[in-house]
């Protein structure tokens, strides 16, 4: 057996939170990365996966992070933890390099990309002038930047997110490192771009014979590219093994749950199994119980939108005005108790449609018929009684609840505004009922939002909508910011509520698998236009439009690829 290139042994890291409290981010983590191998470090937020990668490079904040004396990180025969500051600095960017989640903020905005690449070459290879220029262009070409000779002088903001990440990769491989650490390199990117970057990393890994430590929260992403998988949770390693083993025959309940709680396009169980289900041993049974979706002409219509358009304006030139068409001629019918999925990449206009439908934006054109009236033509006052019947759950659970209100106040405010309930006692009774409906303990009523996790906050936001007994609920990327296991729980909750109250959903997401799971009909949007709009099963089975096909091809397939 060959010796590992990187060997992390019993890594413990503690963070000092304030004078008294500390937090153990890593509780003794051990794993190896062999030469020429891709290892995926998988875990949800708070699992310690990013701390691990920063510890390897010696980039933990020195003010408050402490690495335990018994820990070892052996790389190429040296213990990285015992190296001097300058020794480890010389390794960084040369033998070990790293790419990060947000390419935009990870590149220095005031230097050209060429300058930033040449900086590495100068630092480690002492390459300057023409030689450096040539090498930098070659690198940009290698990572697939078109017309590299010209773009070498671009500033980061002049490039798209995908290109920025390619530049980061070019910078990382400039010195032919032995190990590339990729920390969530595709999370901030659209699904089609994600696929390109994943392919690029895999290709470069093969070509240069590097090792890659790939850090991600999404197991599905690593199926294609990783040789081995390490699953982490709360600073511990839950399971590690070859990708095949872990995917085909997971041993740990947590791994099992991670693998199956993420919706996939080819199966639609009635409810998604979560960790508790695996612990209780009922997950297998759940997987078999399928749900059928789709709409019939006879289903009653709650909302009909015709020719919705929304323009935004910006200044241009001396007197000019530039118009940006965020949504163009969008029409659809939403049926009672059904879900309309709205899918597209960033900038496709899907969120604009959602916000315009409920008049958080004013529509530039179009009509929205609800309960026999065109709600777009109403004055603010006329609209008020209809307002409560169309509600929205936003993406960021940390921003959508007023931090200065208790949960009780948050839930009772809409009731006060819309005169729901007789008095305070009646309202608080209803609030308690709703809390238990969304699966939160009663005492949550007295707490503030900052005391809850992301998933719990999303439940509170859902409960707030339910206080007004809406007909339509718009879910604007409502589960996108959540970890997969929490996402499954919230999706199950939304399903249960739809079953119970006959709610109609407009479900907006960039995640095709989630949209497929939730929707009866799906609209695919691109550049403000609807490119395809059909029953979800039909659309996923046989996409008609090229763009839809491209989107579907980009979905990470796990091991099935």
């Amino acid at each position, binding site marked *: 057996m060959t010796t590992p290139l990187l060997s992390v042994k019993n890594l413990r890291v503690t963070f000092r939170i304030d004078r008294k409290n500390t937090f153990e981010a890593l509780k003794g983590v051990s794993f190896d990365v062999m030469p020429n191998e891709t290892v995926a470090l998988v875990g949800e937020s708070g699992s310690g996966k990013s701390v691990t990668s920063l510890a390897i490079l010696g980039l933990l904040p020195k003010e408050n992070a402490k690495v335990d004396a018994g820990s070892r990180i052996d790389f190429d025969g040296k213990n990285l933890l015992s190296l001097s500051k300058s020794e480890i600095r010389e390794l960084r960017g040369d033998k070990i390099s790293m790419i990060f989640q947000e390419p935009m903020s990870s590149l220095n905005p005031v230097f050209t990309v060429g300058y930033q690449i040449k900086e590495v070459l100068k630092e480690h290879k002492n390459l300057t002038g023409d030689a450096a220029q040539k090498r930098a262009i070659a690198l940009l070409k290698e990572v697939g930047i078109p017309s590299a000779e010209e773009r070498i002088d671009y500033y980061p903001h002049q490039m798209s997110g995908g290109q920025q990440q390619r530049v980061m990769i070019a910078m990382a491989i400039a010195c032919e490192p032995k190990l590339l650490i990729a920390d969530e390199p595709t999370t901030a990117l659209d699904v089609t771009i994600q696929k390109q970057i994943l392919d690029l990393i895999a290709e470069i890994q093969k070509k240069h014979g590097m090792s890659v430590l790939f850090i991600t929260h999404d197991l599905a992403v690593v199926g294609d590219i990783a040789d081995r998988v390490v699953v982490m949770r709360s600073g511990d390693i839950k399971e590690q093994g070859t990708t095949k083993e872990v995917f085909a025959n997971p041993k740990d309940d947590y791994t099992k749950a991670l693998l199956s709680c993420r919706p996939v396009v080819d199966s639609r169980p009635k409810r998604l199994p979560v960790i508790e289900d695996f612990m209780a041993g009922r997950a297998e049974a759940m997987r078999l119980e399928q749900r059928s979706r789709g709409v019939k002409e006879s289903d009653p219509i709650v909302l009909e939108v015709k020719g919705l358009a929304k323009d935004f304006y910006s200044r241009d030139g001396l007197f000019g005005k530039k118009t940006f068409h965020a949504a163009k001629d969008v029409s659809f019918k939403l049926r009672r108790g059904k879900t309309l999925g709205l899918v597209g990449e960033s900038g496709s206009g899907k969120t604009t449609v959602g916000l315009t439908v409920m008049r958080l934006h004013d529509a530039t054109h179009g009509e929205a018929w609800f309960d026999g009236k065109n709600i777009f033509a109403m004055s603010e006052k006329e609209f008020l009684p209809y307002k409560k019947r169309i509600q929205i759950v936003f993406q960021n659970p940390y*921003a959508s609840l007023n*931090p*200065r209100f208790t949960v009780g106040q948050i839930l009772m405010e809409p009731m006060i*505004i819309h005169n729901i309930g007789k008095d305070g006692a009646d309202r608080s009774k209803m609030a308690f009922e709703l809390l238990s409906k969304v699966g939160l303990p009663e005492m949550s009523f*007295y*707490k503030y939002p900052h005391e809850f996790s992301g998933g719990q906050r999303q439940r509170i936001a859902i409960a707030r909508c339910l206080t007004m007994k809406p007909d339509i609920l718009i879910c604007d990327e409502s589960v996108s910011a959540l970890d997969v296991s929490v996402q499954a729980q919230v999706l199950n909750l939304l399903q249960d509520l739809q079953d119970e109250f006959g709610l109609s959903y407009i479900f907006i997401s960039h995640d095709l698998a989630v949209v497929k799971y939730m929707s009866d009909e799906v609209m695919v949007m691109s550049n403000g236009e609807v490119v395809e709009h059909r029953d979800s099963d039909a659309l996923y089975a046989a996409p008609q439009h090229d763009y839809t096909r491209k989107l579907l091809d980009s979905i990470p397939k796990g091991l099935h690829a």
Partner: protein
Amino acid sequence: MNTAVMNPSIGIERSPGLWSLAWKRLIADKIAVISLAIVILFLSLALASFVGLIAKGWNNEVGVNYAPPTWFKGSAPTEDLSKKQAVNPTGPSLDTGLAKPEFVNDRDPLRETVNELKQQLGQSAGANSVDEIKIVDPLADVIAELKKKLGRVGDEGEKETESTRLQTLAFGADKWGRSVFDKVVKGSETSITVGFAAAIVATLIGTFLGALAGYYGGKVDDALNWFYSIFNSIPYILLVLAIAAVLNKKGILTVVLILGLTGWASIFRVVRAEYIKHKARDYVRAANAIGASHSRRMFVHIFPNISHVVLVQLSLYVVIFIKSEVILSYLGFGVGVDTVSWGSMLNEAQNELILGYWWQLGAATLFMAILVTAFSLFTDALRDALDPKLK
């Protein structure tokens, strides 16, 4: 604990809100606690002086002219001087003392410079009081001046001058023998009153306009921004001086109005930016979605979330305005002669320093530095406590 009683069925304590969490962080910070204690001490000093518990007689001549601080008694030249003053009250006026070689001959080589300097400095210090007749009986002059200024009954002042005056005082005495300690306490009252009152005026105006501009945007924002840019384009001190020139009226109220009405621009900018940021936040959109009115979104939803910014700005203002008041009063555009300010003390002290009487300068500087330092440190701690992410 109350809440546990209020909700016995649940039996949990009400969770701490963000304010109480911030308060906990604040009192965990030693510097914050100490500076808060000092600020409170100053506030009670000002209050006590306001209701007349202390420093009531700041205008009485309780000591000999330029009585040194008690602990400084041993020092030779000043003691000499004060004794002479006490024995011979009809001695040469100290106002013109610079010109009298017998008192300053140790500095003879520099006398010309001193004179020159004095003339220069005298411009605002009332140099026109230099008068031959007054030199003969400086105290009569001083008393007359005071009487004129204060409209005080004549014999009362008379009595005080006749009564035995103290040779030394805790913080020394000024030109007329008034206690520097009483003056500096009274000065604290003035500074704190002006600082807080003007800060509140500026904060109210700036916050209200900033909230309107930031929340509504569009035409409202354009109009208010235009108004703001006018105030912003004139350097603050220039605007203050211009208004002082026009009003040509002294007094605490005038200073408060000048500072408050000109100073609102910086908080306007900050609050406007906060409102622009917050109105796009999901929680405000959610409030819109549930049907909350504009005023409800503006004041019930957004305001509590930016109130920490307002609070920090308010305390920054207190510091700025205290410093501005000192400068205004120094220049003679501030509070009137019927009250005392650290600024007017510095003005007097500047002449005294050349004569070697440094205690009025020292006391005013010390008090001001302690208050302003404590207040600034408290502001920093407040900001950290309210917004832990910043640190």
